[in-house]
């Protein structure tokens, strides 16, 4: 097969990260690329950005310390080069995370409205931009871990709802869905087969009566 069997109907965790990395995030650039109208002969001419997957306009018009938005993968690359700092998203604060935790504990059958990419963004920022976060990393990590465990527990509880018809699971993040995918779809497909063979039997019984 031209595609490895383990990603034939799902995504690998690396691919989930890739998808998340395309999303925009705010940065504080530490350098300027915008060329002023007067033209400054003292500054050396520099190569302009020309991108094929993302908007290069913000990058060709950077002004140091002025916030701008770029793709997450670009932000991480610039950060690694020491050329910017990343503006941590508002939900990645101790106070906000605590609110989410409280909601999760209060509602046993629902999930809080975390961003669809919360796990991956948190992981990436912890490892590559810890100094840009509002609160100490180890505390934030703890809260993220708590959220993760509470939600995993809920998902486990929710498995009893698997059936042959359909399921609604609002507010699950992409990574969580991908983790669930093989099991949930596998079980529901099997239930569907079982159900249809039962109804076939029932159907043929009616026929003979």
């Amino acid at each position, binding site marked *: *097969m031209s*595609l490895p069997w383990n990603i034939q109907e799902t995504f*690998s965790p690396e691919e989930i990260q*890739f998808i998340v990395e395309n999303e925009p995030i705010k940065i504080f650039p530490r350098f300027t690329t915008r060329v002023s109208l007067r033209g400054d002969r003292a500054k050396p001419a520099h190569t302009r950005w020309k991108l094929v997957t993302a908007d290069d306009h913000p990058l060709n018009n950077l002004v140091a310390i002025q916030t701008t938005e770029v793709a997450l993968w670009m932000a991480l*690359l610039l950060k690694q080069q020491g050329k910017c700092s990343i503006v941590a998203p508002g939900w990645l604060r101790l106070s906000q995370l605590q609110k989410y935790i409280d909601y999760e504990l209060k509602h046993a059958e629902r999930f809080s409205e975390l961003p669809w990419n919360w796990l991956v963004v948190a992981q990436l920022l912890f490892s590559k931009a810890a100094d840009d976060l509002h609160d100490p990393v180890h505390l934030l990590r703890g809260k993220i871990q708590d959220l993760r465990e509470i939600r995993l527990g809920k998902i486990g509880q929710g498995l009893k709802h698997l059936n042959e018809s359909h399921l609604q699971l609002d507010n699950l993040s992409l990574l969580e869905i991908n983790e669930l995918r093989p099991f949930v779809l596998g079980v529901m497909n099997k239930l569907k087969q079982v159900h249809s063979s039962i109804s076939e039997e029932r159907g043929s019984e009616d026929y003979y009566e």
Partner: protein
Amino acid sequence: MYGDLGSKLVLEAKRAQQLSQSSGSDQLPLYQDDLVRNILREIAHLKKNAEILKSQQELENFDNKVAKCQYFVTLLCMERNKRCLLAYQKLRSDALDAAAWNRNGLDAMSSLNTAKDGSTNLSHHEQEYLKDYVQLITDMKSGDYTDIDLSGSLTPPSDVFIDVRVLKDAGEIQTEYGVFNLIKDSQFFVRQADVERLIQQGYLQKL
């Protein structure tokens, strides 16, 4: 029992599939030539039985439910054997396909084809198939799809450029970003693809 050989072959197929899907292995178990021949013989035998049953039925010309059932089961056995045979061969060819994509052409041919003593686990027809398929992949990689390197990595790119530390003196390397003098304990920011081999060889350490 009719069908036993078929089951045995299917188990062999399963083994081949597991081997192929486990990481890092592009090997196939030995082609079960004897088993395949025996199953084909069994089918021929069943076919003769079926014909005898059919001509008997026509001769006797009454509704013999047992004979009809016998005939039907004989047909089913033949079909099942056919299915086992095809499954076995298809599973193996799938494994060959995967190996061809993983190994980039000639590499696949040589590594799958010869064990240390020069023998091979592939049947003659399988070797031909592999050769043809490798050629097909090579042709697919050219034309419109040349620039994207169709048989390249299916892992998303991360860290196109990395920081490395030099562990041992390694002389100079030339990249399109300039010449780097690899002196012990110095650090550089380089393209990962350029220094992959040096990292593997232990000259550089990825930071």
